[in-house]
Every structure is written in structure tokens, then in C-alpha cells.
């Protein structure tokens, strides 16, 4: 997340004096027997770019549709600016939504699509054209004002949808998989554009996505969801570096997970017994885990070093054999089979062009990492 | 908003209740009444002003006499049987005529198919009555068919076709052909062409590939087409009365005559109720076929 260091850090969630814009309080939503949202509590602050991340069917879309007003909670309350919005129909909410399919009206021109909401707002008629013009400028589509949606490209449609949902200057903008229909290259450009527009307009954005990279790029905070519950809410770097559970660690990025039991401990330092005849792994974790608790040791592949010789400066060093090498251009991932059959992935940046590879298949190598590189997870 | 929803649902609902369901109940009720020389020509009539007693006596006077009459007079059950026979035979004939057309359409090039499709649909928009009428001039004794047959020397005497069941078959095949062709065509058109290539690759001749692959895969289309022809043909009135003769017995015609010529409303109503009961079986089978198709498509 691009937060320049010299600016005051934007973190209203750490400031007890700030009031959240949206509050979910013990919200449950059932469709018949199926529990889509399970007793969920969550605060979202003004001007946040908040991402709801999870696999399909985890409840993220339901959560968003409840904010838009297309679904009502079975129990619990949702407050927007301190007001219960359960009874407010979607057309009366200061919330707008950008649909996954964009839902552009095919019979209206780009300009009329953008003006659609304004014509149904208290805005005086003569001010509407100026506002439409402004929105067209914001998304750089001035010369397409009179085109119909089918006469513009996918990326342009996406921007029209964005302009249309922003035109009424909602307190809250909901984005349902906004970039899902774009190809990879365009998606990347559009992500930065979205962040730019969010900053310019100062609107609170809530985005639903199943793409973890997208969430990491755009969001100020991410809520990782599963089975109608929020597993972890945090900033992207915290989510990546300090996942609170195996689920989050596994869902975001690539990770090595080693199952074991807590052995000796010293404050926040633990040693984990993970295999007969192997040295215990020394790792950091939250204080107060009882000895002999079942746990997982999680470590990102890029934090695992690989070498022919046993490194002397690392507290953890394990021996294994290279099983597979995946060359990805900027990095290479080595799959190393440890002596007891567990496979550990190690990633190395390809700083130099490979003229001579010094590591190859079936080489016996050492993988090593520092005490703070990995995490102990009990959930 | 709720008032609007109520209005939206209630308007078509009550329209259909009043002009579709209630008329049926009336038909059903009259089928249980007795013929009378009166206006309306049946008894009893429900007189609500007489209170409960008159309602009770109204119901006690209803009976199934007319239905018993239908089984006793051979005209009626013969008419039902002959309707079933005519509808069944002409459905089969329509299938035989329609299948090659649908097959040819499905095999034609992409540029031709929209045109062929329109040529099949076009007659559907043209007046049914006119299409039936156009055969009178062809099938009559001095008609074009007989002129042609005598010209090529196939017959010396004119064949009597008009006013026989044969003319009715021809009329049904002709008017309902689009209903047969379109579902078969859409089944064939959906088919993956590589299936035939696979079958030939695995050693089938072209003919056996057709019998073993194409034909079974087009079966849902054939079934749908057969029902679409059979169901309306069973109650057909226009074709038997224009092309058929006095010997052509079809239940739609019997009902019409019973009502307009004999003014026997209770018997006409009973004829209608029984026709409906006969139709329920193919309609349910058709619905189930469609349901199965929809599930298979998903």
C-alpha cells in the first residue's frame, strides 16, 4: 500500500476518537437453512479503501448487497453514519454500487448512463450536464459521451460504470469484483487508477474481490472471509507478514506450512518439534502458547535461503534434495524435499542472468532461515 | 410500492381467473346438467336468491347422465377413437416428412440457414385458414393433383382425395410441419459435428453413424415435435371440416356441430370435458420431456 512515510499515517482504526462510517453489529444472514453471514461484527471508517477478500461463497458479496440494500440481515444491525439502515430501501441510501457486470443501461448513451442517478436526485436540472462533464473528465472519457455501451471497449465500460456510481457523490461506494472482466495487463493499470480516483474524490470504497493481489494493491485494510465469518481484518502488510491463522497464511500468497508441537519456549520464542531426528525449528510467535500445543510453522518461500553448504549464521538449517525448479523469470522457486519427505519451497531472486546454474535437480542442499522469518500459528 | 405489486399481480391474475378458469368451471357444471327447452337450454340454473335450500337442490340435480350418454352413443366414442387415430397417423407422417427437412437445414451452410429458417417460419405467420383452403383446389376431383396425375398417365380416372381422411392427413401435415421441423432442427443444430467424425473414425459407415449417433441425439427434438403436432391435431376443427368428408369423424367437429347445429349444450360440454381429460396425458408427458431437456441442458 502506497503510504508515503512523511505524511501522517492514515489509520483511523487505531484512533479510538474516530467514529466508524459503517458498523456491522452481530449481523447474521440466512437464506433458508444456509447461513451466508454468521454473527459478524465489523467497522469500516470514512475514506477507507476496504477490501472484502475470500473464495466464492464466503459471504463477501452478501455482505456488500446488504450495504447496498438488496438484502436485509436476518438478525443484527448495520449502521451507516450511526443510523440503522435496515428499513431504508436501496433507492434512498447514500450508497452506490458498481456492479460486476457493470450493469450499464444498453439503451442509454454513456452520458445518459452517468446522468441517470443525477436525474433522480435533488440536484437542479441545469447543473446535471456540468456534473456529467466532470465525471467524464475524471474517468477520461470525454470524447465517448454520446456512444452507447456496446460501442466502447471493456475497460471503457468499466470506467463508465465507475463514473456513474460516483456521480451522485455517495458516502460509500461499493465495488463488486470491479476488475474481474478485464485482462491482466489492463487490470493492473486500472487498479492504480481506482486508487487515484478514490483519493481524489475522498469517497469510502468497499471492494469485493477474490483476487488477493488486487486486494493487496488497492486496499487500506483487508478483511479475509470464510464461511460467513471474518477471519482477519488488517492492513495488507500485516495480513501478509502476520497472518493470524493457517487459513489466512495459505490464502494470501505462497507459504510453507510445517505441522508440529510446541517444545521449549522463552517469552515469544518457541522451538517446534516437527519430525523425529530433526533439529527443532526456532521461531517467533504470540506469547503464552502452552508447551505441547499442536501448531503450524508458517514461512514464506522468499524468506527461505538455499545453499550448497551448511550456513553457519542461521539458527535454522535443514538438509534436503532439490526435487523441482520453477523458473518464473524474476525469481526461481526450488522445491526441496527434506529428509523426512516434507517439501519446502525456497525462492531466490534471479539477480543475474543465469549463465551457469550452480543449483540443479537432485543436488543435496541446505535450506535455512532466521528465527523471526517464520511464524507459529495455532489456529 | 406494495399496492403496485398487488396491482401488477392481481390484474393478469383476475383476468385469467375470470376469462379462463371460471369459463371452465361453467363448462364442467353444464356438462352435469340436463338438456331443456329453455333459455339457457339446460337445467338446473343456480338461483342464489333461494338461499341454502336452492343451492342444495341445485347440486342434487347435477348428474353424470351426459357422460353415460357419450359412452352409449357410438358416434362419440368412435369420434374420440378416430380423432386419436387421425392425430396419431398424421403426427407420424409429419415426422417422416419433417425429419429430412430439418436434417437438410442443419447440414446447410451458415449463410443459408437464416433464410431456410425464415422459410419454415413464414407459413406460420400466414393465415391458417388460407393454408388449409389452398389444398381444396389441389385435391378436388378436377384439382391440380388429379390433372397432374392424369397428365403423366398414372391414372385415367380422377382419384377422390378431397372429403376423405387422406385429405385431412395432408392438411395436418401441411399446416403443422413447421412445429415438427423447428424442434428437430434445433436438436440437430446443437449437435457437435465431431461426434459424427468420431463415429466414422471408429469404423462406422456414414449410414450407421447416422443411425447410431445423429438419430438418437435428435430424439428429444422429435419427441417435442410429435407432441406439438399431436396435441393441437387432436382437437382440430378447421381441417376436418374443410378437407374432410361427412365420414370424417373428429371430436372438434362433433363438438361444434353438437353446439351450433343441435344446440345441445350439456352434451357439447361433456364432449369438451372428456376431450380435455384425454389431452391431459400427452400434455403431462410433453411437459416432462421439456423438463428433462432443460435439466440436461444445464
Amino acid at each position, binding site marked *: 500500500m502506497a503510504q508515503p512515510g512523511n505524511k501522517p499515517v492514515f489509520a483511523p482504526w487505531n484512533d479510538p476518537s474516530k467514529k466508524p462510517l459503517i458498523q456491522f453489529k452481530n449481523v447474521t444472514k440466512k437464506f433458508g437453512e444456509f447461513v451466508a453471514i454468521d454473527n459478524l461484527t465489523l467497522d469500516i471508517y470514512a475514506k477507507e479503501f476496504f477490501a472484502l477478500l475470500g473464495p466464492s461463497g464466503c459471504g463477501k458479496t452478501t455482505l456488500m448487497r446488504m450495504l447496498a440494500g438488496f438484502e436485509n440481515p436476518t438478525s443484527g444491525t448495520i449502521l451507516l453514519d450511526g443510523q440503522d439502515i435496515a428499513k431504508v430501501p436501496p433507492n434512498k441510501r447514500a450508497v452506490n454500487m458498481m456492479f460486476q457486470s457493470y450493469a450499464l443501461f444498453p439503451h442509454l448513451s454513456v452520458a445518459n448512463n452517468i446522468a441517470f442517478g443525477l436525474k433522480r436526485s435533488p440536484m437542479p436540472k441545469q447543473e446535471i450536464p456540468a456534473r456529467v462533464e466532470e465525471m467524464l473528465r475524471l474517468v477520461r472519457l470525454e470524447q465517448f459521451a454520446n456512444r452507447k455501451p456496446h460501442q466502447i471497449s471493456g475497460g471503457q465500460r468499466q470506467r463508465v460504470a465507475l463514473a456513474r456510481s460516483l456521480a451522485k457523490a455517495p458516502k460509500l461506494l461499493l465495488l463488486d469484483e470491479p476488475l474481474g472482466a478485464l485482462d491482466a495487463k489492463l487490470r493492473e493499470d486500472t487498479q492504480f487508477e481506482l486508487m487515484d480516483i478514490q483519493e481524489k474524490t475522498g469517497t469510502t470504497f468497499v471492494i469485493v474481490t477474490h483476487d488477493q493481489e488486487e486486494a493487496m494493491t488497492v486496499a487500506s485494510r483487508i478483511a479475509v472471509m470464510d464461511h460467513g465469518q471474518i477471519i482477519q481484518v488488517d492492513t495488507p502488510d500485516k495480513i501478509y507478514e502476520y497472518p493470524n491463522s493457517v487459513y489466512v497464511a495459505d490464502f494470501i500468497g505462497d507459504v510453507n506450512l510445517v505441522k508440529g508441537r510446541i517444545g521449549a519456549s522463552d517469552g515469544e520464542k518457541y522451538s517446534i518439534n516437527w519430525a523425529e531426528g530433526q533439529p527443532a525449528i526456532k521461531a517467533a510467535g504470540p506469547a503464552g502458547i502452552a508447551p505441547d500445543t499442536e501448531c503450524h510453522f508458517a514461512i514464506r518461500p522468499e524468506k527461505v535461503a538455499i545453499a550448497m553448504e551448511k550456513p553457519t549464521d542461521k539458527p535454522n538449517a535443514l538438509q534436503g534434495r532439490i526435487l523441482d525448479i520453477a523458473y518464473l523469470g524474476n525469481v526461481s522457486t526450488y522445491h526441496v524435499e527434506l529428509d523426512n519427505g516434507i517439501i519446502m519451497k525456497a525462492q531466490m531472486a534471479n539477480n543475474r542472468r543465469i549463465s551457469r546454474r550452480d543449483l540443479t535437480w537432485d543436488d543435496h542442499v541446505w535450506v535455512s532461515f532466521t528465527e523471526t522469518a517464520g511464524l507459529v500459528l495455532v489456529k | 410500492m406494495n399496492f403496485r405489486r398487488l396491482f*401488477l399481480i392481481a390484474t393478469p391474475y383476475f*383476468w385469467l381467473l375470470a376469462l379462463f378458469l371460471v369459463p371452465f368451471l361453467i363448462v364442467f357444471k353444464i356438462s352435469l346438467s340436463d338438456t331443456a327447452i329453455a333459455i339457457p337450454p339446460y337445467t338446473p340454473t343456480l338461483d342464489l336468491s333461494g338461499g341454502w335450500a336452492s343451492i342444495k337442490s341445485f347440486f342434487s340435480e347435477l348428474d353424470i347422465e351426459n357422460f353415460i350418454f357419450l359412452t352409449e352413443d357410438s358416434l362419440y366414442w368412435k369420434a374420440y377413437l378416430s380423432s386419436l387415430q387421425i392425430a396419431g397417423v398424421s403426427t407420424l407422417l409429419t415426422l417422416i416428412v419433417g425429419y429430412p427437412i430439418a436434417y437438410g437445414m442443419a447440414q446447410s451452410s451458415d449463410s443459408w440457414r437464416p433464410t431456410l429458417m425464415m422459410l419454415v417460419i413464414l407459413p406460420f405467420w400466414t393465415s391458417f385458414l388460407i393454408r388449409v383452403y389452398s389444398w*381444396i383446389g389441389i385435391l378436388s376431383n378436377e384439382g391440380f393433383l388429379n390433372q397432374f396425375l392424369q397428365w403423366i398417365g398414372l391414372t385415367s380416372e380422377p382419384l377422390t382425395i378431397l372429403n376423405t381422411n387422406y385429405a385431412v392427413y395432408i392438411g395436418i401435415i401441411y399446416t403443422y410441419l413447421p412445429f415438427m421441423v423447428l424442434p428437430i432442427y434445433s436438436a440437430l443444430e446443437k449437435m457437435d459435428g465431431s461426434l459424427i467424425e468420431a463415429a466414422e473414425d471408429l469404423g462406422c459407415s456414414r449410414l450407421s453413424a447416422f443411425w447410431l449417433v445423429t438419430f438418437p441425439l435428435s430424439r428429444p427434438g422429435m419427441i417435442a415435435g410429435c407432441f406439438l403436432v399431436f396435441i393441437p391435431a387432436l382437437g382440430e376443427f378447421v381441417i376436418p371440416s374443410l378437407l374432410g368428408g361427412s365420414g370424417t369423424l373428429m371430436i372438434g367437429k362433433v363438438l361444434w356441430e353438437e353446439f351450433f347445429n343441435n344446440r345441445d349444450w350439456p352434451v357439447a360440454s361433456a364432449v369438451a370435458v372428456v376431450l380435455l381429460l384425454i389431452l391431459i396425458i400427452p400434455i403431462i408427458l410433453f411437459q416432462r420431456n421439456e423438463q428433462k431437456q432443460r435439466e440436461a441442458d444445464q
Partner: protein
Amino acid sequence: MSRKFTWFNATALTLGFAFLYLPMVILIIYSFNESKLVTVWAGFSTKWYGELMQNDAFLSAALVTLKVAALSSTFAAILGTMAAYVLVRGGRFMGRTLFSGMIYAPLVMPEVITGLSLLLLFISIGLDRGIFTIVLAHTTFAMCYVSVVVSSRLVTFDKSLEEAALDLGCSPFDAFISVTLPIIAPAVISGWLLAFTLSLDDLVIASFAAGPSATTLPMKIFSSVRLGVSPEINALSTIMISIVTVGVITASLISKRSIGQRERDEQAALKQ
């Protein structure tokens, strides 16, 4: 299907379409026959068209038919669209199954039964039969066809378009009028056209529903056709066939052109 030109297919198509179109072609040719004998060619003439124009009975029947068709197809389009919307978007309500049953049943009902039942209804409530009762009858069965056409369009309609309209401040009614209706309009129009042709065509139901005071064109044709073939009817048929053919071909050309235009637009949009 694999597409190969074979003699079998060519023959099947030629014979099939000859069968479909030859009777109508003969009808049209012999409408220009000089002779009163319809099966003997006696030279070209348009005199039967002239006679038809003099025939007041046919002209007034045609007028009645057009009135009935215009009114009933319009009512059917409105009611059928409402019914389709209720079926696809109405959610649950009391008697939904009965409702959908009443929509589909008239499609498979023999016309004699529909006609008979409506006539018995009109008599039992003491309604004077005439143009009004024919309109009622035609509206009832045509609305079911309209609702089938419109609901098949509504099923594929992206529901998020309506949600977007609500989201942007429309009331549900406003959303229907300014978003749903313009988009499904082609289906409503083809439903209207279907209802119009069904009404123009119908003989059986109109015969039951019409009293002695109103005669529609099909009823008139039917009663004169029972007496045999007449060149006047041939002329009338030719006119009707020509109108339908021109209409259908024009409609399909328009839709083909707009589809083509759309595809070109989309291609152009991709190249930007």
C-alpha cells in the same frame, strides 16, 4: 453438425420447401385467372381483385377483424407483459402455481374448448356478444402467447440492471419504466405482432365469441369456402399472404441489419 453438401440434403430441402410453398404459389397464380373455374387457366386478369373491392361484406368483415386485432393485441401485450414480469420477477405469492398453469394451459387448449367455455361464460353473465366479446376472448388467449415470448426474454435479462437502477435512486416502478421496459421492448413488440396475427387468423374462438352482430374476416372466408373454391377468396388470400410476407421479410431484414451494426460497433470498440 458437420456441414457437407449432399444430394440427399439438397433433395430433401427442395421437396420440403416445394411442399410448403407450392399450394400458396398456385393459389396466388390462380387469383389472376380470368375464369371463374379456379382450376382451369383462362388468361391473366385482375378482375377478381376488383370484385373483391366491391364486396361490402368482405370489406366490413375485414374492418371488424382489424379493429378486434388492434384492440386485443394491445391489451394482450400489456397484460402479457405484466404476467411475464409476475412469473419471472414476482417472487412468491398465493396461488403462483395456479397462475403459471393458467398462463400455459391456453397454449395447448383446443380452440373449440376455449371458444365454447367463453361463450358459455358470456351467456351466463348475460353479456351481449359482439366485437367486445371477441376482443375479450382474443386478449385472453393471446396474452398467454405474449407472456411466453416476454418471459423468455426476461429470464435472460441481467437482473443487476434493475438493481443498478434502484441503486441510482429509482423506485421499483420507475426502474421498470425507464430500464426494464425499453430493454425488453423488442420482445414486447414481437409479442404484440404475434397477438395481432393470432387474432387476424382465428376462426374458431371468434365464431363462438361473436354474436350474430359481428362477423370477422376468417368467419366470412370460412362460410364462403365451405361452398367451394372461389377466385375472389384466392384474391383475398393473395393480398393477405403478400402483406404477411412483406412484413416478415422487412422485420427480419431490420433485425439482421441492427445485429450486423451492433457487431461492427463491437468490433470497432475492441480496436480502440
